[in-house]
């Protein structure tokens, strides 16, 4: 098996490693020069819109697809040409793929039977796995009699019973309703922490990724856009796509008018002449004065007050009117018509004590601190 000379010297704490992996289906490039290092015991999420190559990446790790180029290592060993049944990796499939001709216990014990464990041991471990997913007593049930959430747990037990080093999950909660999904998210996360198994989790739901993951990899068109912790991605999205995909943002376009690359700061001048100061999120970027740039501001950072704006140092203030107001339960969303165009602000409710009362059509001032300005240069 060909492997780069330095493959043995790599950090073996990486359970799964993708080195410059590309996968093409004819003229479609599903995965484009992807490099990942998935730490042992971490909860790793692949997040991105439909068709961005998440499933393909997962299938290459599982062994159902071979990379067109690049290399995959599992526990430090290159796995090119190793068939799925010889990889110590198990998958929870998007639609569970439970065997309809077997009851729950036989489904869960399937992997154990392939390696020839004794009947007693199979029974014992199946029992344990069902306990783990809180399905004890369901051994003899037919899979099609189970609810979606129960089926999902059987699929999970069936994968976990083999004690894989890595568990791959392809949108495992996609078919569940919102409430159940939230519950299962917590359960899955708890399970992962309890067992210490590496989870590679595919989802296109940003909330899910933010709730559960240690590391999120945002993909688009087969390429990795950014990877990092949920906080890092939320607070420092490196480009407009990530900023839009994770959470919501107000974006204001302009040109760079001032740069402090060492301090990671920049000034952006809008076509109306307003200058916004903020952090450059992409530390690797080397922009120059005059380049186009985008300033992103999270809606919850905008403050609204009745009356006209009064300029304050370290703050940006603009005048506007409330265009639309949407009650969202725990918060209210405001659509604002301002000198900078339409902006969205959000305000959380703290109990009943509403401090300000602003109404649609009313003239207001909007302001936010400079540290809320995220300068995106790509």
């Amino acid at each position, binding site marked *: 098996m060909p492997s780069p000379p330095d493959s043995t010297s790599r950090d073996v704490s990486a359970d799964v490693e993708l080195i410059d992996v590309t996968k093409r289906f004819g003229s479609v490039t599903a995965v484009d020069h992807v490099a990942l290092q998935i730490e042992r015991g971490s909860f790793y999420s692949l997040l991105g819109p439909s068709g961005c190559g998440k499933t393909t990446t997962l299938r290459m790790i599982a062994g159902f697809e071979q990379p067109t180029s690049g290399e995959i290592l599992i526990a430090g060993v290159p796995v090119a040409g190793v068939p*799925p049944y010889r990889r110590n990796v198990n998958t929870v499939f998007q639609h569970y793929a439970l065997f309809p001709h077997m009851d729950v216990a036989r489904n869960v014990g*399937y992997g154990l039977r*392939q390696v020839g464990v004794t009947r007693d041991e199979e029974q014992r471990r199946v029992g344990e796995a069902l306990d783990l997913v809180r399905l004890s007593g369901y051994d003899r049930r037919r899979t099609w009699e189970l609810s979606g959430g129960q089926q999902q747990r059987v699929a999970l037990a069936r994968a976990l019973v083999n004690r894989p080093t890595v568990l791959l999950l392809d949108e495992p909660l996609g078919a569940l309703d919102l409430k159940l999904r939230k519950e299962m998210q917590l359960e899955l996360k708890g399970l992962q922490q309890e067992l210490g198994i590496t989870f590679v989790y595919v989802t296109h739901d940003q909330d899910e990724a933010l709730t559960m993951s240690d590391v999120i990899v945002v993909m688009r068109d087969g390429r990795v856009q950014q990877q990092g912790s949920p906080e890092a991605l939320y607070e420092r999205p490196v480009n407009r796509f990530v900023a839009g995909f994770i959470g919501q943002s107000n974006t204001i376009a302009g040109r760079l008018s001032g740069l402090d690359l060492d301090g990671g700061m920049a000034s952006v001048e809008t076509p109306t002449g307003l200058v916004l100061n903020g952090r450059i999120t992409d530390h690797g970027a080397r922009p120059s004065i005059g380049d186009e740039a985008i300033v992103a501001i999270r809606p919850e950072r905008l403050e609204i007050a009745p009356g006209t704006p009064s300029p304050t140092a370290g703050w940006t203030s603009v005048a506007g009117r409330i265009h639309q107001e949407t009650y969202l339960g725990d918060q209210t969303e405001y659509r604002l018509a301002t000198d900078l165009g339409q902006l969205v602000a959000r305000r959380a409710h703290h109990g009943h004590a509403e401090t300000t009362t602003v109404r649609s059509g009313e003239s207001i001032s909007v302001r936010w601190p400079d540290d809320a300005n995220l300068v995106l240069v790509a």
Partner: protein
Amino acid sequence: MVRSGARRWRSRIATALLLLPAATWYALLLLVPLVILVVFSFGGRAPEGGYLPDFTFANYLELPTRATAFVNALWMALGGTVLCLLVGFPLAYYLATRAGSQRTLLLVLVVVPFWTSFLIRTYAWLTILGNNGIPSLLEDLGFGHIVLLNTPFAVLLGIVYNYLPLMVFPLYVSLERLDKRLLEASKDLGAGRWATFRQVTLPLSSAGVLSGVILVFIPIMGEYIIPALLGGGKVFFIGNALVDLFLQSRNWPFGSAAAIVLILVILTAVTIYLRVGSRGSGSREVSLL
């Protein structure tokens, strides 16, 4: 209450009316002939042939003279069915795993020969198996003189050739419908190709196997043209005996008795088969999904 009662009656009448054509059809084409067969089987033969009212068990008592024909048909039906399955399964599997356009083409290729008359196709085998066909080829290759035509081998070959599509299509349908993700799940859980085939593919295509076997077995039991053509009248099925009894010696009562026993033999075989076939793995429920 009154309204829902009236509605229930109306729906019952509608159901009855909708089922009427099918019921009439079955009554006329299945039940009536069956009753006639039973009545005839206890009758006597008219002097010039046909049926003479009587009540006798003589026809049933004479059935052992046709034992060979029964046994021939039974063995050939079993052998033919097993061979069809062995040949048909890989073919169906291959078809089911091709890409769309290629699959359509291959399916058409499987069917096309069957657009020509059954007789002409079977007649072609007379030439292929005859002296100037395969035997002369084998002789040239130094295998000595081998007779193929008018042997049980030729009949079996004709049976497999003609009944193969009846086996392939239900198999194809069940394999095609089989969720390919289950095969990936199996491999993911550590099962190799063969283990996956044995534990997933086979049980999940058992509905196709079940119907294919029945579709093939029953008509072979009643087959008479293939043995007549490729067996040269020497490989004799109960179907041939029935043709002779009804269309040559005009012994309708004896023919009726033989036909009734044939129906019973088939029913018994199929019942046993369904019992045994559906016992393993509870795969039958799947087939109904």
